[in-house]
Each structure stands twice: as structure tokens, then as C-alpha cells.
């Protein structure tokens, strides 16, 4: 974490553009938390770049007083890879939606993650196509009735976290648009991680998919339906009354009624090399399980941008800085 004092305030990160999201959209909160986090981390406007695809969520860069690219549908990871590989000192954020990242952009998404380019992906998951007015998305549940699926969707949804973990992610996390404190903390953790940080944010689209995450957001239910991950701590939720225990390689929920010791519970470890635990946690879905929120996995591995630049340095070291004259005259030449 940066030790400098914050020099900019959250509102210094607001651009002069009118915000064009629907009133009540979950995107507003994510925008607000992002500005706060960047300010609190002492980030500089000019060293920050937001790159998005297409979708409601992808309008995000317009609203940040930083550099920004509102690119084309699904390809933000590729633009970001080109930028970060050549300008590793910049702080790069990829903003994307469930359609943008997982439908048209699924391939770039997994390749960015496996390469571990040092940047942050924030996926606004509203389980719907917002901008095109309400078709189902790759995270929509089977049976979902939308304009394009009047008889209900028949596609098994993708689990964004599982996919990211299988794609060798070094950092994966989940948060919720309205859970302001948690969202801030999660964005901050993402920013601090070296390598590709992937954060799924449950985001409400109040126009086309209102309430899809209500279970995880509503005061009344969220304690029962989510479990906050804490490194080194057992998985306990429902105000301390319930926990998660491992049964073979499957998790199970248990009542902490005194018969079960905390030590019997599953302890979270975001730093283990192997991705089994993170994968297992990603499979805990509502309503069978409380859904984990927080950081699932945060491990260290070399970043693409540092290595591509290191190879340049090594080449210079080995062959000395390239010289056109030497290049041109290499191999067989003759004089006329």
C-alpha cells in the first residue's frame, strides 16, 4: 500500500462528462468507490488508464478524469495488453461487463489472465445485456426469459471466477455494488496485487434485470447468503452462527451450535499456490451455499509486462543496443 499521503480527492477523479447511466443503476456505486480508492491510494490522474469494451458498464472511462479508451466489444484485454507491455509504469484498469468479458470477449479474458499482465479487470456482472436492452448473458440462469429467449434460456451459465481460476489467475475476488466498504477494500486489494487482478462485482441493472442479486444485497438475507473470505480465517457467516466445513473435497454448511469447533472449519488461504481451494470456493453458489465474497486467491507469479521488458533488457545486454549499421551489414554483403 502506498505510504504517500493522498494528494487528490475522489472528486478530482471525476471527469466533466454527464453520466448517462439509468437512474438507480448499480454502476454509479462502483464508479464512486473507484474514485475514492484511487484517491486514497494516492494514484495520479495522468498515470491511470481505464480501458473498456462496449456495454453500459463500458461507459465507465468517460466518467474518470484519467486517460481512457472506450474500445470495441469484448477486446479491452487486448488493448490493455498492448499498452501495459509497452508502458509498464502506467496503472491500467480494464472495465467490462458479463457480455463483454465472457461472451464476445471470453478468449481475450482468459488469455489476459494466463499471461498475468499487471493490471486490474473489474467485471460488472448484471447477468444481462444492458446496452442492447435486455438479452440474456453468459451469466444468466438457465430458464431466464428475455427478449432473445422468450421460452427461457437453455445455456448453462459460465461461472466467471471458475473460468478465471482455471485460466491460471493469480488474483480473483468478488464484491457487490452496494456493499460499499467491501467493494472499496476489494478494489484496493486488486490495485495492490502485482499481476492480473480479476474482480467480479455483482451489479444491479434496475431496468432489465432488477433484483438479480437481491439475495446477496438485501440486509435481511445477505448474512445468510454470503460469506466474507478472510485470509487465514475459517469460513463463518450468518453472524457467526454458521460455518463451512470440508467433506472430502466438497464444502458443506454446518451450524456452529457448539458441537463443531472452529478448527474443524475450512480455513481460507488466498496464498496457496495450487488453485484447488479457490476453485472450490468459486463453486459455492446460492442457494445451496452462501456465496464467498472477498479475495479468493492472491498469489505471486511473474507478470507478462515485466518479462517482455526484461527480454529486451537481456537482449541489449547480450547483443548490445541495436545498431542499424551493424544490422544492415550483417551476413553476406558485397561491394559494387
Amino acid at each position: 500500500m502506498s505510504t504517500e499521503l493522498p494528494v487528490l480527492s475522489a472528486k478530482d477523479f471525476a471527469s466533466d462528462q454527464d453520466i448517462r447511466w439509468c437512474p438507480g443503476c448499480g454502476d454509479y456505486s462502483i464508479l464512486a468507490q473507484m474514485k475514492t480508492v484511487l484517491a486514497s491510494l494516492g494514484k495520479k490522474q495522468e498515470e491511470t488508464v481505464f480501458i473498456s469494451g462496449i456495454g453500459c458498464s463500458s461507459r465507465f472511462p468517460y466518467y474518470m478524469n484519467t486517460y481512457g479508451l472506450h474500445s470495441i466489444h469484448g477486446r479491452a484485454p487486448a488493448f490493455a495488453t498492448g499498452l501495459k507491455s509497452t508502458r509498464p509504469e502506467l496503472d491500467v484498469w480494464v472495465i467490462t461487463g458479463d457480455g463483454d468479458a465472457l461472451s464476445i470477449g471470453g478468449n481475450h479474458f482468459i488469455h489476459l489472465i494466463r499471461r498475468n499482465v499487471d493490471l486490474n479487470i473489474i467485471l460488472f456482472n448484471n447477468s444481462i445485456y444492458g446496452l442492447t436492452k435486455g438479452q440474456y448473458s453468459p451469466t444468466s440462469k438457465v430458464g431466464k426469459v428475455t427478449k432473445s429467449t422468450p421460452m427461457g434460456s437453455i445455456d448453462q451459465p459460465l461461472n466467471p471466477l471458475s473460468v478465471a481460476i482455471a485460466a491460471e489467475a493469480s488474483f480473483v475476488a468478488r464484491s457487490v455494488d452496494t456493499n460499499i466498504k467491501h467493494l472499496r477494500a476489494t478494489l484496493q486489494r486488486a490495485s495492490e496485487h502485482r499481476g492480473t487482478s480479476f474482480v467480479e462485482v455483482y451489479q444491479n441493472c434496475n431496468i432489465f434485470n432488477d433484483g438479480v442479486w437481491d439475495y446477496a444485497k438485501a440486509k435481511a438475507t445477505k448474512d445468510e447468503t454470503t460469506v466474507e473470505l478472510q485470509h487465514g480465517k475459517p469460513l463463518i457467516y450468518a453472524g457467526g452462527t454458521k460455518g463451512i466445513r470440508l467433506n472430502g473435497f466438497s464444502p458443506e454448511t454446518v451450524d456452529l451450535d457448539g458441537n463443531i469447533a472452529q478448527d474443524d472449519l475450512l480455513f481460507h488461504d488466498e496464498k496457496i499456490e495450487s488453485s484447488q481451494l479457490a476453485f472450490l470456493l468459486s463453486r459455492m453458489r446460492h442457494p445451496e451455499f452462501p456465496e464467498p465474497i472477498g479475495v479468493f486467491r492472491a498469489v505471486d507469479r511473474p507478470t507478462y509486462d515485466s518479462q517482455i521488458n526484461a527480454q529486451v533488457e537481456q537482449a541489449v545486454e547480450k547483443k548490445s543496443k541495436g545498431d542499424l549499421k551493424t544490422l544492415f551489414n550483417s551476413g553476406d554483403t558485397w561491394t559494387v
Partner: protein
Amino acid sequence: MSSPAELFPPTKKPAEALSGVTVRLAGDSGDGMQLLGTQLTNTSALSGNDVATFPDFPAEIRAPRGTRAGVSGFQVQFSAEEIFTPGDGVDTLICMNPAALVTNIGDLRRGGILIVNSDGFSDKDLKLAKLDVNPLDDDTVEGYRLIKVPMTTMTRDSVEPTGLSVKFADRCKNFFAMGLVFWLYGRDVEPTLRFIENKFSSKPDVAEANRLALKAGWNYGETTENFASTFSVPAAELEPGVYKNVMGNQALAWGLIAAAELSGKELFLGSYPITPASDILHELAKHKNFGVRTFQAEDEIAAVCSAIGAALGGSMAITTSSGPGIALKGEGIGLGLILELPFIIIDVQRGGPSTGLPTKTEQSDLLMVMHGRNGDSPLPVIAAQSPADCFDVAVEAWRIATKYMTPVFILSDGYIANGSEPWKIPEVESLGKIEINHPGARSPDDEPFMPYARDKNLARPWALPGTPGLMHRVGGLEKQDGTGNVSYDPDNHQHMVDTRAKKVERVAESIADVEVFGKSKGTLVLSWGGTYGACRTAVKTALEAGVEVGHVHLRWINPFPANLEKVLGQYDNVVIPELNTGQLRLLIKDKFLVNAIGLNKVKGKPFHVSEIVDKIKEVAGK
């Protein structure tokens, strides 16, 4: 080791002087024909000939041995005069097996020399080539000077002293053939001996075997009565300078590296492998010490998008591909266009449509490159005319891209990419610098930054992330001129569409006028891209035959050079030879309402000079 001159004594037979020769080497892909061809080319170039080559690979990685599909060919023309093509008719054809013979004999000129490895014509070999009768025994070889050489046997005999197994000994037979050809044309063996020494430095027995085979071939020529004389091709009168033989893709890569250096930029390549473009990636990847970063993307879309990301960050960004991959990049290129960022898209064309003929050459992507994007979306397009020209084209493309802040297309093709010719190595100091200015930092008290303000070339500023005070957002939606803010205003949209078009038109102010070669009236041959050499040679030939004909070759296709309209107006007829169904013709007819005549060939092969000469004569009424 004795000196070359002792081992390879100059011939005692008479030497007939020729102004130029076209040799084709053909054998199985395992027979080492490409190596042989490269050596013959380099040696000829080193001895002062002008040279041009055309390798012809099989479509398969390792097609079954001895089959027609597995034939690998290499053609080289070396000449005492300036030449522009690897030659039309072949003067001497070397064939290592029946498949090579039947697939290549058609290009040998009547009376030409046909040297075959007679050991390669067993019944098994004939069967592999799907032949019932030995072509050496029927009328296939009639009318040629057939010379049967038992190359395999003689190679085995010659390398015996090394104790190599038969399997390894047989691998030396291309060096036997080389010795024979070198003897026939009085070539210097020294460079090849040096090559052998370097290449096989860790395997001295193999090196020795190859030397022995080479010598055996040379001696065979001197000994056999099959050859009454040898041939000599004196040095050409080339412009003085230091030369080097380059292949098109290599020259393109070097040109890009040079452009980066000249503009003080580091180079980023985002690419996905595809024939025949991959070698640009391979070549650039070798030169990371120039600050080159190569990114093998997951696909062509990521490749172009990564390049745009790098351009946004201030690098010299490139993306390379061939037809199918360029088709995939259309959406990304459209974004680059509306972002008005400089970068280069290279299309090394191959036979189409669809997967088409991946290893063959064609010029059929021109219209895709012009129009393959949604909306009105003009971009500058430049085409390389020969392997060595690729170098200059790369530098010029980057000069225009940065001056006008626009993506630029470079067109090459399989013929240029894999062909080679001498390149006069430029003095590095003589290469003009490419001036690039990035706007500097601003404080909050300064005027607000206008990312779409324009200079006299209509270029917008290239503001780099990291610069304080220049924060701005760009994207694919239409934007207000000046501020760059998203705008749905009807008049602004019209203005922006017009401005983008005007900007590309203005490029004409920065490019050279076309030059007329030959006559300025009568018939004009108008060409572009890799057909340059065949067209130039054809026009020369026709001029010598007294035809009133001129030649104009286009490097820039969008925009057309400023004087093109005037030049076109001087002629009665315009002939446009193209390796497609008439794509430049479409653009010329549209632009200048000239009833241009097409000479179109879509066979995956370059033009023969004679095809163009015939057309010129037909059109000129001769």
C-alpha cells in the same frame, strides 16, 4: 584443407558468355533445393550479378516423399544486366526426381538444359509421382538438352572416405548438384565452403562430406563429355555501393526497425502467425535489442487491438497478417481509424478467397484493405513492389502514419515476401529522421486540452498517458471535433466523416508523384505491388520491339499520387495487369473514369513477362 582454387580448378573447357541465366532447382522437399538455391543466389550476387529469386514451397509441411505435392522448387535469375524478375522461361532445370520433372518441365524453354538425377527414377519413384512410364524415356523430355547424372551413386562414392552411413551420404547430393551447377556457370565456391564450415562446425564429418560432394559435382562437369562448354555471366553494372541479398519479409522487418529508430520510438508488434506473413514476426522477434517487443496474440483481433493499445501508449505499433487474418481485423482497424492513432497494418497477400491457396501469391486483398470496414472509413494504402522495396515502404508508411495520425496499410504478397533480390544498403545517416511531437504537460490553469484539435495536415495531437494535464478519453463513438467528446450532432458527424476523408486525401501532398518509364503516349501499363518487375521488364521488351508504351507503377494506392490523373490522360490505352480479377482497375475506373483494360491472372503464380508483352502488343495493335 587445401585452397579452393586447388580443389576446384577453373574449367579448361570453353566458356560461353551470357548476359543472364535463369536456373530452376527442383526436387523433393527433403532434397535441400532451397539451400542450394540460396547458395547459388548469394554466390552470384557476391560475384556482381544482379539476382532475383522465387522459391516455391509445397503446401504441406512434409508432403509424402517423392510425390508431386512434395516438390520444392527454387528459381534464380542472375544477370549481367539490371533485372526485375526471377525470369520467365527457365534456361537450366535441375530435377532430382520424376515428380520434380513432370511438375516443372513446362517452364523450361525449348532447347534448355535439363539435368536430372538419373538415380532418382526407379520404379518406386515413378509410382510415387503417379507415372506409368519413365518420363526420361518418352516425349516428355523431347526438345531439351537432357543430361542424366547418377547423382546418388556418385555422391555416395565421393563421400565414402568420411565413413558416413548411406542415409547421411544421400543427404549430400544437393551439394553434388551444386558443384555441377557452380562448375557449369563458373561460380565461386568460396562462399559456399565458408557456409559449410560455419553451418556444420560441430559436425566435421558432415562438413567434409558436403565438401567432397561439392567437389565431385564440380569434377563431374569437367570430366563428363556431356558438357562441351561452360557459361559465364559477367558482373552487372549496378549502382555503386554495398549490397546484400534480402528477402521481402526480412526487408520489411528491417524497414520497420529502421523507422522506429529514425523516429525515436520503440517497436511493438502484435501478431498471430499465418503464412506467408509469419516470418516478419520471426524476424522482429530476433531483434529485441532494438527495443522491439513482439506479442504473439491469441488471434488476429487481439493482435490488432494490442497494437492500438501500444499506439495509444506512444509506441510504433504494427500488426501483420495475411488475407484471412486481415478480414478479422476490420472492426479493430475501424476503431484505430476513428481514434486517429498512428500504426501500421501489413497484409502479406496469398491466394484467396477463404483459406484459398495459402502458399501461393496473389494481389486480391486490395479491395478488402480499401473497404473492409463498416462505415465510411478511408485509410492510406501503400504497396511494396519488390523484396528490397519493402524496406523503404516500411519507413514511408510510418512517416505518413505519424504525420497524419492515421493507421496505414502496407500490402505485400507471397511472391515478394519469400523472393529475394540485392538491396543496396543505405547509409544510416542518409535516412531522414521522422519527426514526432507529443504535446507536453499542462497545468490546470492552461487552456483545456483538445485531443481532437487539428494541425495543418488535419492531424490531431498524439497525447501520451503519463503526461500531466492531458487526461482525455477516446473511443469508437463519433466524437466532437476539437474536444473529442462523444457527439450525436448531425452536422458534426458530417464534418468528421468529411475530415477523415480529407485527411487521407491530403496524404497526396506528402508522397512522390508517379514517374513514367518509357513513352508518354500510346499505351500505358499501370501496375502496383509485386507485379512491378514483370511489368517493367515487359515494357522494356516492348519498347525494344518498337511499341509506344510507358510504365507507371503505383506505390500509394490511397491516395493516388497527385499527378496520376494528368499522366493517365496522356495515353490512348491503359492496361492494368493484376493478380486478381481487376481490383485496382475498379478503383482507377471509379476515380478517373478511364476505360482501363485488365490483364488478370489468378493462378497463384506471378506473371510471366511474356504474358504482359503479349497484352501490350495486343492493346497497342502491334
